[in-house]
């Protein structure tokens, strides 16, 4: 199976985050979860989507370190390789 591309992950992460409330146009790589009003439960759900789709397991301690959308995308891509 080819490794997932950063673009694919970015698109899926933005789509998932948008489902939690923020407008998709606000969800940039530099946006912080705090600015987007994405809370810890949202990140648990994001981790579930990532695990289901990419087989990448993000633990609670991984999620706590993430501050921006870009950091989450980079972590998922790195783990998926």
């Amino acid at each position, binding site marked *: 199976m080819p490794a997932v591309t950063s673009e694919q992950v970015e698109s899926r992460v933005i789509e998932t985050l948008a489902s939690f409330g923020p407008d998709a146009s606000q969800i940039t790589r530099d946006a912080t979860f705090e600015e987007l009003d994405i809370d810890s*439960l949202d990140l*648990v759900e994001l981790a579930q989507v990532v695990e289901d789709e990419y087989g990448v397991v993000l633990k609670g301690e991984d999620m706590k370190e993430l501050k921006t959308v870009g950091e989450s995308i980079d972590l998922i891509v790195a783990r998926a390789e």
Partner: protein
Amino acid sequence: MPDPAPRREGCALVTGASRGIGAAIARALARDGWPVGVNYRADQAGAEAVVAEIERAGARAVALGADVADPGAADQLFEALESQFACPVLALVNNAGIAADNLTPSLRDDEWAAVLDTNLTAAFRLTRRALKPMLRARSGRIVNISSVVALRANPGQANYAAAKAGLIALTKTAAVEVARRGITINAVAPGWIDTDMTAEVSTDLLAQVPARRAGTPEEVAACVRFLASDEASYVTGAVLTVDGGLAA
């Protein structure tokens, strides 16, 4: 003629449902439109009889064997139920329970561990697993069957009471964590209910029950049915005693 049962987007899992309170809950949820997974550990014939009764009434159910104390049971049960009915599990009733009574000075480690494993740890694992489809669906109902002994001491049941009180704390904490996703988590605390499990309970206890009688599994099941219903959408983190006034 009663209103037809509502159509459900998901199915329900009731653990320990081959007899007693669990069987009554499975029947009540099935009548309320839920396709039901009737979990059993050892009593396959009992579970199949519950399923047959539900099917005769025109509803859907399946018997699912698994010891909930087994760490792999949650995934196994959810996968089997979701594939059987092709829908997510959106109602979970953690009912499976065992007792191993002894006064605290004599309570053995294995009696403590077995009761905590089945009555509390299994409920945690099943709750954790259930929240996956429920979070995705923005909807779900979890009902944990606690006990009046979590609220009022009953000598000889330190392990059982600790597990059942832990279940209430789990209920409240998890309820608060997921409330904003349309998921409710509540506990029902039965008192002395007429089942095989209480057949050997001293009848002296009856004198302490304000209602002066034992409850029936159906009286507990009615409360679970309500908590699993759409009408209970604003009830979460609650403990509903069904005990004839024993804990009042």
